[in-house]
C-alpha cells in the first residue's frame, strides 16, 4: 500500500498534519512554500533583528562595565553578573519558544523543515558564551532562513560571515601569524573554521582535501573577524596573513589581502562538485532514508550543476525522484520533529503560545501556603480562595505544562533548540533516536500531552487526522480498543508510524 501525496508531503517533508491547515496539492505547491516561508519572516529573535542587535550591544556594554569595576566588591560583581545571565537566559528561552512555535504554527512545513536542516548543517551553539544566547537566534533568522531557497553560494557566505559562526568556530580568535597584527599581539592561526568549512559545510569529510588545504583555508580566512563592541562582522587586513594560499589547487590572496580573497574561496568551495555531492547526499539522508538511492543523489547533483547550486531547483530534483515518494517511514522523527508534530496534531499551538511566559512572582506565591496550613482545620482551608491567587496558580501550572511539553521535553530527549552537541550538529540516523530511553521519554511526553489536550478529542478521529493513510491496520485496531481516551491518544503519538517519517 502506498501512501498519498498529501500524507507523504506532511509527514516526510513537513511537520505533520495540523487540523484546519490547507495541504499542498502537488510538488509545485510544496516547493512554493520556500518563497512563502522566506516572506513570512521568523517570529524570533524577540522584537526583530534590530532590537536584538541593540540587546547584544547593551549586553556587551554591561559585561564590560562589570569587568571594569576593578577593586569593587567581588560579591556585588558576581551578583550583577548572575542577574545579567538570568536575564539573558530568559530572553534565550523566549526565542527558543518562538522558534518552536514558528514550526508548530507555520503552514510552510517544508520550508520549516529545511530551516531546521540548514541551521543544523551550519551548526552553532548558544552555549559558547553569554552573548551567543542572543546571537544564535539572530543567526538563524538573518543568515540561514532568508537564504535557503537561493544559490548555495549565498547561503554559504551568509552563514560563514555571521558573528555566530565566527564566534562558535573561533574565527574571531584567528590571526595570520605573519600579519602585522598577529606578530604584534603574538597571536596565531586558529584552524577551526577552515577545517569545518571543508569537512562539514562544503566538500565533506573524506572527499580528498588535505591538512595543508585546511591550514591554507584558515590562512585565507584570516582577517575575517568580529567587531568586539557591537559584535558585527568585520574584515581587518592587519590580522590577515599576507601572501598566496593554495586551497584545492587554487591560490588566493596576495601582498595586500582583502575580503575578496576569502569570498572567492567560499564561492569556489560552493561550486565544487564534491560540495554538491555532499549536500545532496545529506539532504536525501535527512529527508528520505539513512541509505538513500544513489540515483536520487545523482539526479540532484545534475540539477545542482545545471543551476549553479540553486537550492530550490535541487529540492525540486529530490521531490521529482520516485524514491522521494516510496518506502515511507524509513527515517525516525527526531525529537524536535516529534514534539512539533505532536503539538500540531493536538492543535496545541495557542495553549503553548499563550503560556510560554510567566511573569508572576511565582516564588513568592509558592512560599505562601504556610499561613493557611497552620490555621488547622479543614473548614478554614476550604474558604473561597483569593481569585487573584487562583489565577496565578492556573497560569503557573499552564506555564509549567507548556515548558515541560516544549523546551523541557526537547532537553530531555536530547535535542534542545540551538544547543547542538558539536559543530557536526545532531545525530541523523534512525538508530541514534529510536532507543529505549528515547522511547520512554516519548511515551512520557505522549501521556502528558494527551492528558492535557484530551478534552475534545476522540482517539479514533485523532488517529485519522494525524496519520491519515499512513496508519497501519494494527495501530487503528489498538487505538480504537484503548482502555480510555488518554490512552488512545497516547497510543497514536507513541505509534511507530507517528515516530517515523
Amino acid at each position, binding site marked *: 500500500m502506498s501512501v498519498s501525496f498529501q500524507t507523504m508531503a506532511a509527514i516526510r517533508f513537513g511537520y505533520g498534519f495540523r487540523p484546519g491547515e490547507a495541504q499542498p496539492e502537488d510538488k509545485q505547491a510544496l516547493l512554493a512554500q520556500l518563497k512563502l516561508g522566506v516572506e513570512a519572516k521568523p517570529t524570533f529573535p524577540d522584537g526583530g533583528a534590530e532590537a536584538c542587535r541593540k540587546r547584544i550591544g547593551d549586553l556587551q556594554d554591561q559585561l564590560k562595565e562589570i569587568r571594569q569595576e576593578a577593586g569593587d566588591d567581588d560579591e556585588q560583581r558576581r551578583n550583577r553578573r548572575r542577574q545579567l545571565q538570568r536575564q539573558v537566559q530568559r530572553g534565550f528561552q523566549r526565542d527558543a519558544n518562538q522558534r518552536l512555535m514558528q514550526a508548530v504554527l507555520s503552514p510552510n512545513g517544508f520550508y520549516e523543515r529545511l530551516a531546521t536542516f540548514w541551521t543544523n548543517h551550519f551548526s552553532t551553539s548558544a552555549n559558547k558564551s553569554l552573548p551567543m544566547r542572543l546571537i544564535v537566534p539572530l543567526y538563524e533568522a538573518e543568515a540561514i532562513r532568508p537564504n535557503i531557497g537561493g544559490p548555495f553560494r549565498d547561503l554559504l557566505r551568509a552563514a560563514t560571515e555571521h558573528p555566530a559562526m565566527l564566534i562558535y568556530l573561533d574565527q574571531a580568535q584567528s590571526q595570520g601569524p605573519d600579519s602585522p597584527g598577529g606578530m604584534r599581539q603574538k597571536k596565531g592561526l586558529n584552524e577551526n573554521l577552515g577545517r569545518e568549512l571543508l569537512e562539514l559545510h562544503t566538500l565533506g569529510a573524506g572527499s580528498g582535501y588535505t591538512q595543508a588545504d585546511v591550514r591554507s583555508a584558515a590562512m585565507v580566512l584570516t582577517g575575517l573577524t568580529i567587531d568586539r563592541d557591537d559584535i558585527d562582522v568585520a574584515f581587518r587586513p592587519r590580522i590577515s596573513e599576507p601572501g598566496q594560499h593554495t586551497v584545492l589547487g587554487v591560490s588566493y590572496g596576495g601582498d595586500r589581502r582583502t575580503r575578496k580573497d576569502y569570498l572567492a574561496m567560499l564561492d569556489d568551495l560552493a561550486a565544487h562538485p564534491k560540495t554538491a555531492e555532499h549536500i545532496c547526499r545529506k539532504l536525501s539522508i535527512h529527508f528520505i532514508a539513512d541509505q538513500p538511492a544513489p540515483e536520487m543523489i545523482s539526479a540532484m547533483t545534475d540539477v545542482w550543476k545545471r543551476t549553479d547550486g540553486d537550492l530550490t531547483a535541487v529540492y525540486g530534483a529530490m521531490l521529482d525522484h520516485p524514491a522521494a515518494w516510496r518506502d515511507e517511514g524509513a527515517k525516525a522523527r527526531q525529537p524536535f520533529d516529534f514534539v512539533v508534530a505532536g503539538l500540531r496534531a493536538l492543535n496545541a499551538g495557542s495553549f503553548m503560545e499563550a503560556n510560554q511566559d510567566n511573569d508572576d512572582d511565582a516564588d513568592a506565591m509558592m512560599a505562601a*501556603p504556610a499561613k493557611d496550613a497552620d490555621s488547622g482545620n479543614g473548614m478554614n482551608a476550604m474558604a473561597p480562595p483569593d481569585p487573584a491567587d487562583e489565577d496565578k496558580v492556573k497560569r503557573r501550572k499552564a506555564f509549567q505544562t507548556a515548558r515541560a511539553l516544549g523546551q523541557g521535553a526537547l532537553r530531555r530527549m536530547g535535542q534542545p533548540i540551538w544547543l547542538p552537541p558539536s559543530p557536526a550538529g545532531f545525530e541523523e540516523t534512525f538508530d541514534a533516536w529510536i532507543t529505549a530511553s528515547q522511547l520512554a521519554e516519548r511515551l512520557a511526553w505522549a501521556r502528558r500531552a494527551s492528558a492535557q489536550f484530551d478534552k475534545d478529542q476522540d482517539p479514533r478521529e485523532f488517529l485519522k487526522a494525524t496519520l491519515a493513510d499512513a496508519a497501519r491496520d494494527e495501530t487503528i485496531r489498538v487505538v480504537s480498543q484503548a482502555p480510555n481516551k488518554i490512552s488512545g491518544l497516547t497510543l497514536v503519538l507513541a505509534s*511507530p508510524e507517528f515516530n517515523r517519517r
Partner: protein
Amino acid sequence: MTEIVLSRRGFLASACCLAAAPVFTPVTFAAMPGDNRFVTIVLRGAMDGLDLVQPYGDAGFAGLRPTLALTPDKGLIDLDGHFGLNPAGADLLPLWKSKELAFVHAVSTPYRDQRSHFDGQDMLESGGEHVAEEKTGWLNRALAVIPRSDARKAIDVNTSTELILSGPNNVDVWASDSNLGTAKDEMQFLMRLYAGDPAFAKAMEEATRANGAAMIAEPDGKRGEKIADVAALAGNMLKGDYRIASFSITGWDTHVGQAAQFKRPVQDLAQAITTLKTALGPDIWSKTVVLAMTEFGRTVRQNGSGGTDHGTGGCALLAGGAINGGRILGKWPGIGDAQLLEDRDLMPTADVREIAAAMLYRQFDVSPDDLTAKIFPGLSFDKSSQFLRA
C-alpha cells in the same frame, strides 16, 4: 497513609507530588450545601465484575473460566454463600461485614453492541441514552437541580474536567501534572502497538527491562501510594465545604493474563475506599455514599489469553456509612447458555444510571422528575426503585 495538608493553598503548592493522570485523571470536586457526601469513582477500561464478585455458586462458572474462577477453598472470600470476593479485595471485607459495602451485579448503561471504551465511558459519564447525545456530565447537570445548590467558582488547575463533572455548573478541578506511569493494561496495548515493528519492539523491550521499567511503568508500590494520596485528598476536601467528588481508576482492561493483572486495580480500588473512610472520619463517613462504576462488563467466558474481552453487563460497587450494605443487589440473570446476551455477555438486568439516580435522590433530594428529564434522559426511576433500599 499520607496525611494531606488541609489547606487548599497548601495542596496547590504540593500538587506536583500528587497522583498522576493515568492512575487518576483529574480529581474533581463540587461544593454543595447540606451534610451528605457523594463520591463517584469511574473504573476506566471495563472492570470484570465476574472476577471481582464471583458467582461461585453457579454450576457452570468454573467451566467458563478455567484459570480465573476461584472457590472459597482456593482463596475466594465468601460473601453470601453464592458470591465471593476476589482475594485481591480482601481489605474491603471489614466494610462488607459492617454493612458499609454492597455490590450490584448485571448493570450497564444503555450502550449496546459496539463495546468501545471511548463510547462506553462517554455514555457512563454523560448519562444519556445514546452515544454523544449528552455533551455534559450527569454529575454536573445534577449540581443545578440539587436544592439549595450554591454557585461556586470553578478551579481548573491542570487538565480538563472529566466528562462526568464537566458542564455549565461550577466545579473545581485539581489534578496532578506529575509523571505518569502506565497501567499494566495499557502496557499490553503498547506491546501490541510495537509488535509489528522490530525496531520499536526492541526499544520497548529494553525500556521495560531493569531500570527502564521505572521510566515507563509505574512501580506497583508507587501507584498504590498515589491512589492513597488522591483518595485522602478527596476525603479531606469532602470534610470541608465539598459534597461531591469524582476520580478515576484505570488498569481494568484485562485482555491478557487477567489472573495476575486484575489484582493491582482491585487493590487500588480497595485502597481508595478504605483511605476515603479514614480521611473522612466516622461522622462524615456515616453520611457518605461512594459509587464505583465502569463502562461495561467483560465476557463471561475467558478468552484464549487467560483474559476476558469487552462485554455488556457489569458490576457496580456502593460503599459508605450511609448505605445499607452487606448484600449483593440487583437481579442476577445467571450464566447458563440461554441466559447470556448474544451468547457471550452477562445479561444486564438494570441500568447503572438508576443506581446513580437513587443516590442523588437520597443524598441530595434531587426530584425524580429532574432525574429522569434532566440528568438521565430516558431513565425510568421513581421512589419504588430497588436501589433506594441500598
